[in-house]
């Protein structure tokens, strides 16, 4: 049911972990539904220089988290904001339809982290 790319990212997820002193944190999902993602970003000169995630969830949740960190790393904040759920699913060669909604939250987690970063910066 999962593409080879999803399975590959699930088995060898990139950028797992936390950033001790992050510039932004995004927390999305609900453990009741089975998927929770926490995304940490480090930003320098408007570029995402480091990004890490922790995810409680199914194979698709972990793979989308991993792929999102790969897509966002090295991007400017404006570029990263444009990464959509669809982009993440596409980069993974698609997701099963049932997973598109419940487990494809990583782009939301990234946007939440950026929002947190911008809010902190505005202070």
């Amino acid at each position, binding site marked *: 049911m999962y593409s080879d790319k999803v399975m590959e990212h699930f088995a060898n997820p990139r950028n797992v972990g936390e950033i001790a002193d992050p510039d932004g944190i995004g927390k*999305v999902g*609900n453990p009741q539904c*089975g998927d*929770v993602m926490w995304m940490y970003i480090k930003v320098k000169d408007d570029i995402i220089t480091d990004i890490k995630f922790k995810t*409680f969830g199914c194979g698709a949740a972990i793979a989308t988290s991993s792929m999102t960190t790969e897509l966002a790393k090295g991007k400017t904040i404006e570029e990263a904001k444009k990464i959509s759920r669809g982009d993440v699913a596409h980069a993974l060669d698609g997701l099963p339809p049932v997973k598109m909604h419940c487990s494809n939250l990583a782009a939301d987690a990234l946007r939440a982290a950026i929002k947190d970063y911008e809010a902190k910066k505005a202070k």
Partner: protein
Amino acid sequence: MPERPSKRIYFDHGATTRVIPEVVEAMAPYVSEKYGNASSIHSFGREARTAVDDSRARIAALIGAGPSEIVFTSSGTESDNLAIKGVALHESRGKGHLVTTEIEHSAVLEPCAYLKSRGFEVTRLPVSKEGFVDLGDVEAAIRDDTILVSVMMANSEIGTIQPVREIGKMAHSRGALFHTDAVQAAGKMTIDVDRDNIDLLSLSSHKFHGPKGVGALYVRKGTKVEPLLHGGGHEGKLRSSTENVPGIVGFGKAAEVAQRDMPETAERMRHLRDRIIKTVPETIPDAYLNGHPTNRLVNNAHHRFDFIEGEGLVLLLDMSGIAASTGSACSTGSLEPSPVLLALGLTHEQAHGSLRVTLGRENNEEEVGYLLEVLPGIVSKLREMSPFSKDRPKCGREGGCSVQ
């Protein structure tokens, strides 16, 4: 990580089982040369009829019934539907009240829900945290207009064995019929429909090494049941359809083999199960058994692991060559985890992190040893990815886990 074994390991016998060679061999002639219709009068038909009757006797023997009380169906689901809707919709009834539990298979719960939508009343009884129905609850639930009590013999997920004999007795004392779904129990424990006060009992061939696509309903002599399929009047007018002769032959052989070998296979599976139940919480922190430690199916070991989600467990085990299952929502496509696990009083988070290992007669110590060797590493790997841990069990008090 230990070396992956050359052969895949199958620990999902609650889902289905391998058709063993003895059964394949028994079926083979009825797929090819003995292809007659069991209703035909010629020799082709007669040899098919004899084979169907032999199978009926073997299946009856497995549960202490008479051959004429066995109705062949296409599946456990059909048997449950025939029992529940067949009893409720018979002209002698047509209205009334049914009692069942919250942890039944959907093949019981959905027919009950259907009947409810058609004006019947249904009581769904809760279970204890180990998955047992309370006999006091059963007694209190049965009313003067209760027509049927349906409680499964053993639970498909957590293996809990219900006190069916007492439940059946209570049903009978109030004039209600007693149905039990024995799909998971059959072939793994002794069943006696007279001793256990059972009027209707569902069986499925593929859960004990028979072929898929064939099941049976035991209907106690004299029990009035309305057929679901009308047609040529097969199976004592209860289930019209040309008999699935090869399937029925395989089913009968599987029942015979299960009964013949039960003392030995049940003991072997029980030993392996107990090894898993003992070792998992010893080697993995924050791991808990679901269900009762001993009053459970001999082949069922069901655990939950805090802070992780079950689909990941199943996928990583699969990558290590082990097939098992989970009650997590993510594996089923719904957002809700297993209703059985929620009925035990587990939180959604706890229910998501479950793993079901269901053993079969062919599993051995070496396979269980390999599972116990790889499982701690797999749980750790997922926990390293999880935002939750013993120090941070939930999302904190900063407003839950919704988008911040």
